[in-house]
C-alpha cells in the first residue's frame, strides 16, 4: 500500500488529504477531505493533475487607457501543459473592447480549452 498526502486546493480550507493506493496503483481509500470536491480533487491529483491557468495579455485601443486584460483557461488543463499555455500567450495582443468571457485564444496549447477574458476593458 502506498499513501500519498496532498493539500486540497479546492477551497482555502486546504484540507490535508491522504490517498491510499493498492498494489495495482488504484485508489483504495481517501481520507481527510471534508467535502465531495475534496475527494474529486484527490482522485484527480493522483491520477491526472490539472490546473486553471491565469495570466494577462496586451490590449490595444483601450478608451480608458488600460494596457492589459487578464484571462484564464475556461476550464482546468493538465498541469504539465502550464508552461505551454504561457508560451502560446507570449506576444498576443487583443483589440478593445473586451468583455468577461470573450475567447482570447482558441484551443490553447492544444488542450482543447480556450483562454477567456476575466475583466471588462473598454
Amino acid at each position, binding site marked *: 500500500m502506498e499513501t500519498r498526502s496532498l493539500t486540497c486546493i479546492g477551497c482555502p480550507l486546504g484540507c490535508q488529504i491522504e490517498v491510499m493506493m493498492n498494489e495495482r496503483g488504484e485508489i483504495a481509500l481517501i481520507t481527510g477531505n471534508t467535502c465531495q470536491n475534496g475527494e474529486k480533487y484527490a482522485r484527480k491529483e493522483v491520477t491526472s493533475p490539472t490546473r*486553471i491557468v491565469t*495570466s494577462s495579455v496586451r490590449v490595444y485601443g483601450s478608451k480608458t487607457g*488600460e494596457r*492589459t486584460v487578464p484571462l*484564464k483557461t475556461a476550464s482546468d488543463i493538465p498541469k504539465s501543459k502550464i508552461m505551454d499555455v504561457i508560451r502560446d500567450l507570449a506576444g498576443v495582443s487583443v483589440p478593445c473592447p473586451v468583455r468577461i468571457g470573450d475567447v482570447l485564444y482558441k484551443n490553447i496549447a492544444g488542450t482543447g480549452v480556450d483562454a477567456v477574458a476575466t*475583466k471588462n476593458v473598454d
Partner: protein
Amino acid sequence: MERTEYNLIIIGGGPAGLSAAVAAYDEGERSILVLERDTRLGGILNQCIHNGFGLHTFQEELTGPEYAQRYIDKLEERNIEYKLDAMVMSLESGKDGMKEIMAVSEKDGLMLLSARAVILTMGCRERSRGALNIPGFRPAGVFSAGTAQRLVNIEGYLPGRRVVILGSGDIGLIMARRMTLEGAKVLVCAELMPYSGGLKRNIVQCLDDFGIPLKLSHTVVRIEGKERVEGVVIAEVGPDRKPIPGTEEHYDCDTLLLSVGLLPENELTIGLGADMSRVTNGPVVNESLETSVPGVFAAGNVLHVHDLVDYVSEESAHAGVCAARYIRDYGGEAKEEVKRIPIEFGGGIRYTVPCSIDPGKVEKYLKIRFRVGDVMSSRKVVVYLDGKSVLTKKRRVMAPGEMEELVLTEKLLKAHPDLSRIEIKVEEDA
C-alpha cells in the same frame, strides 16, 4: 458651501464597500453613496487575476476581476450612486449625530458631504521595507509583492528577472507563480516564522508546482547593490527570531519582493476618534460592526485583515444591514438600554471581531471571527455564557494564517436572558 446629504456614505468601493452597499440597499436603504479613490470599482480584486475567489459566495471559482464584476453588476442593477477618483480627506462627527465628510475628486472638486451613517471599507495596505529595518542601501528592485502584482497584471511590466521573496503571505506566494510564468526565476521564498502565513493551497500551487523552495525560519539580513539590487543574504533565525551567525546564504538576484503583512488603512478612523484595537490595527466594534462612534460601521480589511474575499463580502453585508437598520431606527422612541458585553477570550486567541455583544441586537445569528497566535493541533473552541459551556467546536489544526469563525445563534443568546459574561477559549482536545 452647502453640504450634500445622504443617509449612508460608504468609504471605499472595493469588495467590502460594494457588498455593504448592496446589502444596505436590499435592507431598504435608498440614499447611498459609495466613494472610491481609484478610477474603477473593485479595489484590489482588479489586480488579483488568479482564480480561487467566490467559492463560498457563488459556488464557483472566479478570478478577482470576475468576482468584483459580480458585485459591480449588483450595484449597477440597483442604481446605487458612486463616485470614482474621489478621495476622502476627513471624517468627523457633526451636529445631531450627523457625520461630516470632506472629499476631493478631479470631476467634482471639493465635496462637503454629510450622512446619518458611514461604513468604513477602506481596506488595507502592505507593510513596507521601512517597517523591517533591513540594512543596506536603497537600491531599485525592492518591491512590495502587491506593487509587483500591479506592475505585472495591470501595467504590463516585469519588475525583475531573478527574484527573492521575503515573507510567505498569500500575495508573495501568488507573485512567486506569476513572476515565474512571466519568465522570471524565483530563487527562494524566505519566511521568518516557523510556519507560512499563506494559505496551504497557495503553497501547493504557487511554490511546489514550480519547485520554488520555501525556507521557514529564515530572513533577509542584507540587501546588496547600490543603484539596483545585486543580491540578498538570507540567514536562518533562532526561536527568538534573530539571525543565527554562520547560516548566511547569498543569492544573486535583481529583485526582492516583500510580502510581510498587511496593515488596515485607518487614518480616517483614527481622525474620527474611534477606539482602536492594538492587535488588529482596526477599530473596536460591537455585534453590529459599529465602532465606538455611533453610526459609524466598519467591515472588511479595514477592520481586520482577512484571508478570503468571500468572508469580506459576508462581513460587509452584515455591516450594510446594520447601518440600514441604524438609519431606519434613528430618532425613534427612546431606545432600549444598550447592553455591551465584552467578549473575553483565551487559550491563544489574539482577538475577536466583534469585541462586544448586545444580545438583544442579534437577529438569527452572529458570526464571531478570530485568529490564534500560534500553530496548534487537536484543539476545541469552547464558548462559555456566564461560565457555562454552551458550544464546542473541534479543530484539528489552527494556524495564525487562517481566520477562524464561530456562530452564536439568537436562540442560544435568548436562552440566557441575564447574560453578563461571554468567553471564548481554545482548549486541548483530549
